[in-house]
């Protein structure tokens, strides 16, 4: 270490501005890409809704471990308790998906 001879110093605020610019630039790129992906998804939408209509689908196929996690929209409210009157939720995905409400 010794005396430095930097004639031009980057003030810290400028460094911060650069970092922010980089981050925001990256976020902007992600945003643009998401718009592209959404446009692509929108192109597929008609065929997907046709599948839904012609098969009469009522649910997204996500958690296939139990019938009320696979088809929450059409499961009766008693389905989670089907095994036993006092049965508690034992499927892990049950903590993510709220149980069907009474209708």
């Amino acid at each position: 270490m010794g005396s430095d001879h930097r004639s031009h110093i980057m003030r810290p605020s400028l460094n911060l501005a650069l970092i922010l610019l980089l981050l925001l630039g990256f976020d902007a790129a992600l945003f643009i890409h998401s718009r592209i992906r959404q446009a692509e998804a929108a192109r597929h939408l008609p065929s997907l809704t046709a599948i839904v209509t012609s098969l009469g689908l009522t649910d997204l196929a996500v958690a296939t471990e139990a019938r009320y996690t696979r088809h929450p929209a059409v499961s009766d409210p008693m389905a989670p308790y089907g095994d036993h009157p006092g049965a508690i939720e034992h499927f892990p995905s049950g903590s993510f998906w709220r149980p069907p409400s009474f209708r």
Partner: protein
Amino acid sequence: MLIELGEVSKIYNQGQANEVRALRGVSLEIAAGAMVCLKGPSGSGKSTLLAIIGCIFPPTSGRAAIAGRQLARLPDRFLTLHRRESIGFIFQRFNVLPELTVRDNIALPLLPLGVSPKERRRRAEELMARLAISHRASFPARQISGGELQRVAIARALVNDPPIILADEPTAHLDTGLSREFMEIMAGLRRAGKTVVIASHDPLVFEHPAVERIIPIKDGTIHVS
């Protein structure tokens, strides 16, 4: 008169169980360009008197006019502004921020004044050259010697070019050689037109030829013997 105090008193913790009367009715006048020593033992109130002259807080009662401004009813904001422009303070233990570089420590008072980084650097470098510490410019303050710290403290007190320089027991933690060096620098400042007030009970300070006047303080009052 640059510094005028009339019947100034300072009471800490007024009205409480630990009330302390640090100053009782001190009156004092110091002309511009003078070099004065406030002489007294610890607890005599000289640090308090210095703090009032330094616009750190106003007196509890009495008149205090520093560099043309009445302190008594000044709100803290204006007190600070006035202090910024008029006072350079050198502390007993220097009170330099250890993690900052020497250059950054010296330029610290200039930040709230809205001085640009380039200008701050220029002024700091000028003072470092004057006080022969340029070779330590980029070192963190915790890595430099006591003597160099002393000069950093002096440079920082001078960076905003104040008319009044105050020093509180500046030689308390210095050896004889450094104490003499310090007083030479103070004498130089006086010759350059600054008003210098030093609070000290060190003979090396108050017996220095550059000191024109010694003001003895004891138990919060000035003793004129």
